[in-house]
């Protein structure tokens, strides 16, 4: 797990938060003694809040149920976090650029159902069906962006509408039935069914790969800086030549593609795809991003934080079952953790206000 905070990581993020191309970076803490700087950088990692929350939960669950602290459990948690995590990465990118997508759950179901239909009813080979369905997912995302930018309707509203539309179309396409593949299938294995090691499934590997890719894209490329600039001070960004609209359109498309990919993973994992699945995904993805320190106002956020947020949410579910907590309380507990994690994030940000 690449979750251990490193000073280098911290600097990368504090720089890119308000980074505007062509401007010199202000290094505020330069005068402090070297050791203190390192320590402060460590504390200033944006993922610190969620990391503390996650470690506390792991400690709590392990104390109550020793079987929690095993590699098997961790594989289960990571596998459970996989679909949410992949979709949440797209949502995080979009939120940093200052937009929302509430339709990811519907896109998840629609693209998953579309793929399932293409390989069953239409009997298309997987090498054709997967790109076609992924393209459809991307176009659904792009459509959100085009409507939002062309009409200046808030994306919250645009995607609220498209959320209903694509869910409805997924239901209409299937007549409400889950589409199942009842025989062994290489496609399903690759998408999410295959065991890699122990309880770790290939969907968790997809999560790690997507995380690495988008962490690099956001933190290490000019495009990443554009994303932060777009969601931060838009006018300044535009004045400095950041193609704000194009960045947003690309991010809407990415959110769509990743939502579709997450749907494929669930299809692979369950050998079935139901048009009602992914129902809570949009809000859970936003919750994962927010627990991980992404701002609802745009302009700040990290990929690692989001993934840790998704893992935290999965760990809570698995942990509460294993310690034998009354099952109907889970959702309430999850809600408490979301609020506490956000409070923690905000407080840490106040304490380390020098980061701004």
């Amino acid at each position, binding site marked *: 797990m690449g979750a251990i905070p490193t000073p280098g990581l911290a600097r990368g993020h504090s720089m890119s938060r308000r980074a505007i191309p062509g401007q010199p970076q202000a290094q505020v803490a330069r005068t402090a003694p070297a050791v203190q700087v390192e320590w402060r950088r460590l504390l200033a990692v944006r993922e610190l809040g969620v990391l503390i929350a996650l470690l506390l939960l792991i400690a709590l669950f392990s104390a109550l149920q020793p079987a929690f602290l095993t590699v098997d*459990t961790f594989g289960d948690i990571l596998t459970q976090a996989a679909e949410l995590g992949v979709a949440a990465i797209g949502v995080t990118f979009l939120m940093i650029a200052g937009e929302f997508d509430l339709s990811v759950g519907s896109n998840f179901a629609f693209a998953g159902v579309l793929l399932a239909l293409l390989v069953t009813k239409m009997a298309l080979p997987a090498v054709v069906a997967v790109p076609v369905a992924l393209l459809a997912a991307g176009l659904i995302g792009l459509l959100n962006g085009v409507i939002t930018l062309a009409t200046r309707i808030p994306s919250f509203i645009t995607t609220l509408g498209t959320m209903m539309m694509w869910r409805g179309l997924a239901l209409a396409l299937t007549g409400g039935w*889950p589409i199942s593949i009842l025989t062994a299938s290489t496609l399903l294995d690759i998408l999410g069914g295959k065991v890699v090691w122990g309880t770790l499934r290939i969907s968790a590997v997809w999560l790690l790969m997507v995380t690495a890719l988008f962490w690099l894209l956001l933190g290490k490329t000019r495009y990443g800086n554009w994303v932060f600039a777009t969601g931060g001070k838009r006018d300044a960004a535009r004045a400095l030549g950041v193609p704000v609209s194009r960045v947003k359109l690309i991010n809407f498309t990415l959110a769509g593609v990743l939502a579709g990919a997450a749907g494929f993973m669930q299809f692979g994992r369950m050998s079935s795809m139901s048009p009602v*699945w992914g129902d809570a995904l949009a809000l859970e993805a936003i919750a994962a991003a927010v627990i991980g320190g992404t701002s609802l106002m745009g302009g700040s956020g990290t990929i690692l934080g989001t993934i840790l947020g998704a893992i935290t949410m999965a760990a809570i579910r698995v942990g509460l*079952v294993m310690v034998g907590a009354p099952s109907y309380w889970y959702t309430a507990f999850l809600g408490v953790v979301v609020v506490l994690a956000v409070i923690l994030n905000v407080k840490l940000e106040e304490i380390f206000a020098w980061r701004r």
Partner: protein
Amino acid sequence: MRRLAVVGVLVAALVAGTGYGIRLAAGPQQLTFYVIAHTGPGDPFWAVVQRGVQDAGKMLGVRAIFQGPPQRDIPAQVNMARAAISARASGIAISVSDPPAIGQVIREARGRGIPVVAINVKEPADYKGEPIPYMAYIGMDEYEAGKNVARFLLPKIPQGATVLIAMHEPGHVGLEARARGIREVLTAERQAKVETLDTTQDPTKALATMRAFLKANPNTKALFTLGPLGAIPAIRMIREDRLAGKIVMASFDLDPTTIQAIKEGLVEATVDQQQYLQGFISVVQLYLYAKYGLQPADYNTGRGLVTKDTAAAVESLVKQGYR
């Protein structure tokens, strides 16, 4: 100017009059029945009910409309029922998913002279609220069905075993009644420790929580799921963790994955409540009442279990969307 006004008023009156006349003429001929559920055709189970409704409508030559929100949503269901009342339905069939809320709507409909039957789920036997004036119940007794399926599995459940019930919609009256039936039989007959787990409708979460439960409770000998949304991830887990032979499983309702698993021996049995009848018979009964004043009567659609012996025959009917 004045003549123009008079002509205008006359034309308006004529148009309005003709419109009213057309409505009067068409009104009594086209009987319209609404079947309103708490979940729409998004659940495979309700897609079959919808089919029963539509088939009955076609056969009888009446408008038979099935409506339900995409997911279980009581306020949305109430709104749909209100709309049907406003549309002066010739009859309404409705699932009593929430006795106080739906009871209120049913009273309202009956108060306006609209016949109402209950389908699929009714208020529990010990319901303390105001009596709900539906004319008949067409569906399965959930509580009895839970007891039945638990009794069926009894020979395979040892004394004092832990038993898991996967609940995919907590708070659903019917599902909770199924769970209560299962729990009562197993605690009485086997002194079993019966646990209910909120698995949510998300299959990935369901699988992970069930697996975590089994890890924390290795003495678990039986698993009950309450519908396909619970069964699909449970069967997946039984396959992945090779639990066949270690844990016996039973479920409710039919879908391709569950039937396949019964054929393979991964699942012992599933309750078939023949929900096609709930759509079909409710429309037929409402039609007969509207047409000839024949009183609707209770109709038990829950008829036993699908097991390995009957799975193949039922499977082809599921594929056609009738079971």
